[in-house]
């Protein structure tokens, strides 16, 4: 992973802003889907697909690629939008989200979009699958492995025991090729995570499972990239990056409101959101100039 310049950081921020606009546009067309989570994770996905990952959008089946396992499948608009922007498939296809016959199923399904690493939707299974990939890679390549398996998790799914099961197994097997990134946005469907089922102290839980733990601002490109670099330098443990994010990030009216977890914007809301995002994009550009 190359060193990053200020100019490149701005380029990534602009890309994340464009991806957010795509998310709004595709959700409006789909008429259903999740808004807050995808907007909140746009910066992490942009950093991954445009700077961090060792991948090739033109050769999605390349055996030595890094793997990205999206556990909380409901935020797939951000995965699809980022993949389209990265060149995995045509941008126009984003407008088919959730429609009959589309490769962009409401929750990711690799039977339809074969370049996905996993199908997902039911929460809390993604970390297990990423652990399985990391174990297989360890069996095949041992310490020689250059692949990294990324597991993208929501905070709400930590309510489930399966996350605990997978985290313990990864710690036991010292899977240094595994990096989990937790979307710590503090909301889930029924409300705020700390009201539904308190997760704090979350970092301490991961430490107790024998993981290397970092907590970062999930909207700061430099912090995201730096944290992944540090995680890769850890040789005796798997790593987790707890990325504090703002649900609905980029659209002030959506931010921090759990009501936006599971619904799409209507026409007026989408126009307002796109306007807000374009204003933000212009601000990033002018700051750069």
């Amino acid at each position, binding site marked *: 992973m190359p060193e990053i310049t200020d100019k490149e950081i701005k380029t990534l921020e602009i890309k994340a802003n464009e991806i957010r606009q795509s998310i709004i546009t595709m959700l409006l067309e789909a008429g259903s889907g999740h808004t807050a989570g995808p907007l909140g994770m746009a910066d992490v996905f942009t950093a991954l697909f445009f700077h961090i990952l060792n991948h090739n959008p033109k050769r999605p089946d390349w055996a030595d690629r890094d*793997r990205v*396992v999206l556990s909380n499948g409901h935020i797939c608009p951000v995965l699809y939008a980022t993949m389209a922007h990265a060149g995995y498939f045509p941008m126009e296809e984003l407008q088919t989200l959730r429609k009959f016959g589309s490769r962009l199923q409401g929750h990711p*399904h*690799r*039977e339809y979009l074969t370049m996905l*690493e*996993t*199908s*997902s*939707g*039911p929460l809390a*299974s993604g970390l*297990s*699958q*990423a*652990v*399985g*990939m*990391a*174990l*297989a*890679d360890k*069996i*095949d390549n041992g310490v020689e492995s250059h692949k990294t398996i990324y597991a993208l998790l929501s905070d709400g799914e930590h309510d489930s*025991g*399966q996350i605990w*099961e*997978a985290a*313990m*197994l990864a710690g036991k*097997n010292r899977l240094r090729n595994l990096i989990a990134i937790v979307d710590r946005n503090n909301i889930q469907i029924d409300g705020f995570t700390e009201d539904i089922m308190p997760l704090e102290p979350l970092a301490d839980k991961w430490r107790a499972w024998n993981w290397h733990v970092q907590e970062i601002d999930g909207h700061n490109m430099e912090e995201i990239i730096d944290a992944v670099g540090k995680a890769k330098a850890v040789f005796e443990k798997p790593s987790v990056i707890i990325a504090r994010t703002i649900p609905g990030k980029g659209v002030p009216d959506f931010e921090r409101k759990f009501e936006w977890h599971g619904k799409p914007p209507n026409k007026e809301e989408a126009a307002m959101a796109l306007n807000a995002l374009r204003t933000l994009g212009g601000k990033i550009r002018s700051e750069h100039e």
Partner: protein
Amino acid sequence: MLNSNLNQKVFDTDVEQQPIRKGYGEGLLAAGEADSQVVALCADLTESTQTHLFAKKFPERFIEVGVAEQNLASVASGMAAMGKIPFITSYAMFSPGRNWEQIRTTICYNNQPVKIAGSHAGISVGPDGGTHQAVEDMAITRVIPRMVVISPCDSVEAKKATVAAAKTDTPVYIRLAREKTPIMTTEETPFEIGKAELFYETKKPEVVIISTGALTHKALVAAHELGQAGGSNGAGIQVNVLNLSTIKPLDEAAIIKQAKLAGAVITVEEHQIRGGMGSAVAECLAKHVPTPMEFIGVDDQFGQSGKTDELLEHYGMTVEAIKKAVKRVIERK
């Protein structure tokens, strides 16, 4: 009469017995020797599921996940995504019982060729009691698209099924039992996933018993005894026995052929009647050749502690129960 490639001592009182799960352990070891991509995962039941044979030989390809069956299924899915051929093993009650959704989504929906072995299936587990007696496992696995479901009748067939499962590119569920049961098949008995095998054939069958798992031995004994005496005129009743080791995909051709030939069908399984092998056979016959049927199995009840024979008697899965069902179904023809 008994198929010539079966164990000819099958009706002897001292017929050799072995747990079906032992055949699985030997098959897993053989599959591991044949293909270095085979890996095994277990949830704190390594020895009792016979996975220890593989684990000892290939420690680097064995993953112990602890008491965590949901993780067991999904970790295996991830390993399969990287080209491995994972076998996951626990008691059937816990896998595919506890982790059904993970099997559906991360294995079958995801189209990853994980092999799921559920040991200690049926009520014959005995003293452990109802919590550990899986009598719903075939029902919950056969409804999942892509899943192949195999219920071997003895340890020899279990070994063949395990070796064959490793060579498929689909998810497979293999149902295993704990207790020693008679060995009916031999190395020469054909085994192919999706093929039923006629174990007992008569010239003019009045009934065909379609059986799966260890109870196939009781079906054979029932057919044998009925052939010798018991008809209304003192003569025997001619009964065929079809061993249905693959529940899905169903060997519809063999089932239809036997149903047409005999005109009456008994299904025999150590499983809930509702949703199990008998239901699968009924689905097939109702569509193609409606035929009077009687079902031997657990009738919408949970198991309990007891000796195997006591439980089989209590829940109506004995040689006598099968013979009575044969007579009942003949009256309905």
